[in-house]
């Protein structure tokens, strides 16, 4: 069988699996009946509906001819990994990770780490411009979020401020 539209085919598969997962999860909760619906009723109905829709989309992708190019194309792994990693590292450094005994390192260090990692996602990478950018962002964020908006952020590492 030929896949006519790659995007739709995999989108359909995604909807199907998510729908089945939700419907299956919903059966763990009381379903009830129409008059007295349990917490599982609505998610079960929606999950089944999503699975059916996913099935239809997959079926169409196999049968209907499309003129537009519907190839998914290569995944941009480099930006995907670096952007998400930058975000996660920012969270770890900002709030600390008690499970590995890492104390909160504060916003300033987290900003430098985020900028360095995120910049690596781009086409060109220079450590010098990166550090300048990080410094600008750190000062700007400090002024905007801590001084003006007074958000409650740990700014410096916990072991310095005590």
């Amino acid at each position, binding site marked *: 069988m030929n896949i006519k539209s790659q995007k*739709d085919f995999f989108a359909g598969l995604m909807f199907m699996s998510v729908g089945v997962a939700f419907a299956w999860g919903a059966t763990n909760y009381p379903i009830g009946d129409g008059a007295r619906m349990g917490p599982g009723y609505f998610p079960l109905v929606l999950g089944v509906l999503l699975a059916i829709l996913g099935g239809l989309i997959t079926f169409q992708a196999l049968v209907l001819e499309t003129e537009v190019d519907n190839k998914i194309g290569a995944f941009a792994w480099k930006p995907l990994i670096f952007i998400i990693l930058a975000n996660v590292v920012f969270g770890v450094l900002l709030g600390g990770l008690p499970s590995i005994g890492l104390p909160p390192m504060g916003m300033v260090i987290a900003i430098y780490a985020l900028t360095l990692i995120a910049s690596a996602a781009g086409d060109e990478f220079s450590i010098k411009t990166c550090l300048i950018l990080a410094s600008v962002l750190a000062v700007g964020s400090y002024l905007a979020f801590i001084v003006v908006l007074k958000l409650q952020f740990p700014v410096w590492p916990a072991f310095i401020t005590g």
Partner: protein
Amino acid sequence: MDLIANLSLGFGVAFTPINLMYAFVGCLLGTLIGVLPGIGPVATIAMLLPATYALPPVSALIMLAGIYYGAQYGGSTTAILVNLPGESSSVVTVIDGYQMARKGRAGPALAAAGLGSFFAGCVGTLILAAFAAPLTEVAFKFGPAEYFSLMILGLIGAVVLASGSLLKAVAMIVLGLLLGLVGTDVNSGAARFSFDIPELTDGIGFIVIAMGVFGYGEIISNLGKHVSEREVFTAKVTGLMPTKEDFRNMVPAVLRGTALGSALGILPGGGAVMAAFAAYTVEKKTKLRPGEVPFGKGNIRGVAAPESANNAGSQTSFIPLLTLGIPPNAVMALMVGAMTIHNIQPGPQVMTSNPELFWGLIASMWIGNAMLIILNLPLIGIWIKLLSVPYKYLFPAIVLFCAIGVYSTNNNTFDIWMVAIFGVVGYLFIKLGAEPAPLLLGFILGPMMEEHMRRALLLSRGDWSVFVTRPLSASLLAVAALLLVLVLLPAVKSKREEAFAEED
């Protein structure tokens, strides 16, 4: 005159120096972020929402209104100058706007967009004020069955007007509805799909979804494209004011756009997008004056009409939100979330229980519009400068703002892990060609819909016919069915595809 009394109450609330300042700051920040390429109004509002947390509700809403208009105008600026529509409703603006910019007429294009939007905004505000009170009366007649049917209509409307595959859009809505159900069930107290994670029992934060899918997903996809595919801004902007000839062409286009936008915006389901498309189509159908530039080559009417329609539509789309509490599109869904954070549950009761807030908000929308004109036309040079900043400096900053915004919502790092997940999911959506806006709308409506459906069926003792035997509910469902049938008709279907094909 109730209308005047109400509006003056609103302006009395909104027109204090401190609130004017918030409107100004909101507009400034909204434009600043909105002008960044690849950041649409949804991501902008989500990113800037934390800035309003510390404010009292009225000021916060005024600032949000400012952010909203700023973000929209910023999006139009990027669309015209860089050929990069930040949202679906500025897709048509790109066609003639970018051509004008390439001919060195970016100034008049931006002015036309600004002036047209301002006029449309004024009309929209008046309509909103005039219709809000009577519609609220109707809203009080709504029972759970009517609300459920209305939401169905809204969701169907959103799908019909969305571009791309109909089935996929429906699937995205259902997925959004399901994601909205994560968390504690209000009726039974059962924690659903929470995997025993305490943070998940409160449900998934809408900021997390908006930021992850619209913010990170877009950045990753932008970076994945080759440098040559990313349009860079090169043209110079000289002279801002449109010529006399421009004005003569512009005025009727603005009037037509405003009328269309106001009418379509009231409809639940992303009226603003359709309004922009419809307005452009109407302009294309009207005859060209002798010596006028053809459409697609930089005709000023092709900028003025959709921009006015878009703005009038987004103004009147506040009507279903404020009177019925039902968001008609993704941006409004975000506004609902924002209001809930400030302890305001949008709906008919706001107007009666809290008239200062209600009319203050309406007045502040007009102020937000006016601020835009004052702010953006003189400052246009600065926004243009911002667009010439290389993307490699911009995107780490955008990532940072997203991360800070997410963290500050709950001062909790859990949200940062969640946004990482939704960033990956958002990129996957882009790769699979699944438009995320319906998902956000479904996400906000999910819990409401379940609640109303359960209540309606509880009252009818499980009899499903309650949705069709109550006349109001039945007619809402009939309209929804009609919309669906209309779209599936072969003749309309090809027209629709044609209209959306113009964006390429």
